[in-house]
């Protein structure tokens, strides 16, 4: 009986400290290679970009000088930059939600349907694997105002197809359609992988609990359990949409009359076509700053809601 002590405890050295230190050290070691590489290939170059943002460096000239906030001051009045901010926002606002919900819907349809799963997965994934260099030509043709199949199809049902990539009123939508086409497969694969992590037993429970329709099961099990995946997909989709570049570069060159100027294209144009690397760098910094704030807000809000353990 002597060994019973309902004593209120010998709180000596806290063992937890040491254990926590152990764990922290292991964690550090595991992260170290990644940290080093992030430093080398992301942080340092970004630092260089920030530094260049304060300079008047131009491609082809050897020297440059620091000009303080001149580039940033110029940015404030740069209408092209403002235009491209707006266009990027519109593009992102269209492509992100549509591609996420389409991918989710397709993922669920494919998984419930027994027939042709591999085929459908591949079909929807193919756009991700496409080489834009060649695909640009194809889209150009598909969206052709007069000889293009899309408008031919529309005219079959009596609609006068728009001048998709040629008119400033529709060019962003045309690009958005291509953007959706490209990213649905990407999101689809992520959702398919996410679906596998949901324990089957929960669906059994949902059925027994009276979740009759697929929709009920979706609301009760799939959607909440996919939370982490959705968070991930949303984050990545936003980032990818904001980083739209290749389609604009190959299909519209920002035109007509800047109707499809987007941020990365503007930056590219400034840096590599107009060769003003310093100014382009300042733009990049602003671009990053906006994104960082945006992403953190989005991530923090959503992250709270999706992790259960």
């Amino acid at each position, binding site marked *: 009986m002597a060994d019973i002590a309902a004593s209120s405890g010998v709180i000596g050295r806290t063992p937890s400290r040491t254990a926590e230190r152990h764990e922290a050290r292991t964690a550090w070691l595991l992260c170290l290679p990644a940290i080093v590489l992030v430093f080398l290939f992301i942080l340092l170059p970004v630092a260089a970009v920030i530094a260049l943002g304060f300079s008047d460096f131009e491609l082809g000239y050897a020297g440059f000088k620091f000009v303080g906030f001149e580039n940033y001051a110029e940015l404030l009045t740069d209408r092209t930059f403002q235009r491209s901010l707006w266009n990027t926002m519109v593009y992102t606002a269209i492509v992100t939600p549509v591609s996420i919900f389409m991918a989710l819907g397709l993922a669920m349809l494919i998984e419930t349907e027994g027939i042709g799963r591999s085929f459908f997965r591949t079909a929807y994934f193919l756009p991700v694997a496409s080489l834009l260099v060649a695909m640009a*030509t194809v889209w150009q043709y598909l969206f052709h105002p007069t000889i293009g199949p899309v408008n031919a199809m529309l005219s079959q049902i009596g609609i006068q197809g728009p001048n998709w990539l*040629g008119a400033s009123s529709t060019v962003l939508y045309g690009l958005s359609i291509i953007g959706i086409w490209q990213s649905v497969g990407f999101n689809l694969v992520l959702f398919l992988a996410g679906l596998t992590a949901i324990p089957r037993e929960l669906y059994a429970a949902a059925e027994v609990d009276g979740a009759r329709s697929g929709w009920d099961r979706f609301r009760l099990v799939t959607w909440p359990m996919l939370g982490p995946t959705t968070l991930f997909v949303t984050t990545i989709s936003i980032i990818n949409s904001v980083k739209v570049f290749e389609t604009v570069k190959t299909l519209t060159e920002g035109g007509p009359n800047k109707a499809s100027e987007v941020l990365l294209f503007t930056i590219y144009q400034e840096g590599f076509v107009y060769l003003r690397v310093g100014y382009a760098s300042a733009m990049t910094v602003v671009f990053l700053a906006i994104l960082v704030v945006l992403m953190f807000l989005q991530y923090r809000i959503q992250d709270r809601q999706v992790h259960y353990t």
Partner: protein
Amino acid sequence: ETTLTVHYPMPGFFKDVMDTISKKFMEENPDIKIQFANPSATYEEGIQTIMRQVGTPEMPDLTFIGLNRLRMANERDIPVDMGPLIAKDKSMAEQGFSDTILKLAQVNGKQVGLAFATSNPIMYYNADLVKAAGGNPDNPPKSWDEVIELGAKIKALGNSVDSIDFRWQGDDWMFSALLFGAGGKMLSEDESSVAFNGLEGQKAMTIIDRMVKEAGMPVFTKAAGEQAFVAGKVGFAFQTTGALRNTIKNVGGKFDLRTAEIPLIDPVKGKLPTGGNAVVILTHDAAKRDAAWKFAKFAAGPYGASVVVPGTGYVPNNELAAKSPEYLGDFYKQNPLFQAGLKQMPRMIPWYAFPGANGVRVTQTIVDNTSRVVDQSATPHEALDDAADEVKRLLPRS
């Protein structure tokens, strides 16, 4: 033995040409070896690559730069001055390098390269549509008025046929074709003030405006215009003769493709801009420079031209090549479509490049404002004035 690394843009166009030329060159100069660096897709990307590589071991010994980018390259001191090399070389004229031709690749009097492939804007037309619209394909329009009138008739044929594809996108080249054709200039002689919004410019821009208003020219992207034309859905296309070979291939037998000289607003004083590129020497190594000069002359010389012209549609940059039956004389007889560009050669003047750091941006400004006319969101007058205002800002203040 010397090895030269050569870089060139648009391999889809130039790969075969380059391969043929370098093979022949190495046969004639066994002590020089030519190797190619990874080519660039466009002139734009080509010059970017070179500018990045300046000063690194990756920099090639020779490259081919778009004629409108020579000025910019020169401002950055990238090309080797060919002046001394030409001076040493006594027989430039005999080799077919006339002064006019040398001028195409000069910046402020400095010889920064040798024009390699040169082009001028011509008129392509669909003879079938012209006929259907009541025109005579054998007697194509000579003036813009005729073009616009016939274009309107073609448009009226319906069946989603369009009248005209005027290639205003991409750069200011086609605008300058109208402007120079009216005898106008981009800037004043001393390059201190804007001149393209003068009378000639107004006339030029009004032509574009009329194409839209009177002949219903749609807003095409560059590729869309090309595709519609080769599909037989456009009556007239105005663009570089350099695209001829590809256009012929794309049209095949679908319709009767013809070419003609481009109308000039002022048929007397009218000039035309020269497109294309020039071979530029980059290496500062003395031994290599001689070899490079040999190659540059060879490529830009009559043999080079005789390879380039049939394969592309460019006009000969070398008088010898153009005239001598040894090179291209017979070719033109057998290929009448290629004659339009040839006939316009006397009118060719350098493609104007704007001075200063913002040279390239100026071009974009002109394109953007042209597009406002095409989509009818601005009158020619407004567009030109806005462009002029902005260009004024962008020019170096002296």
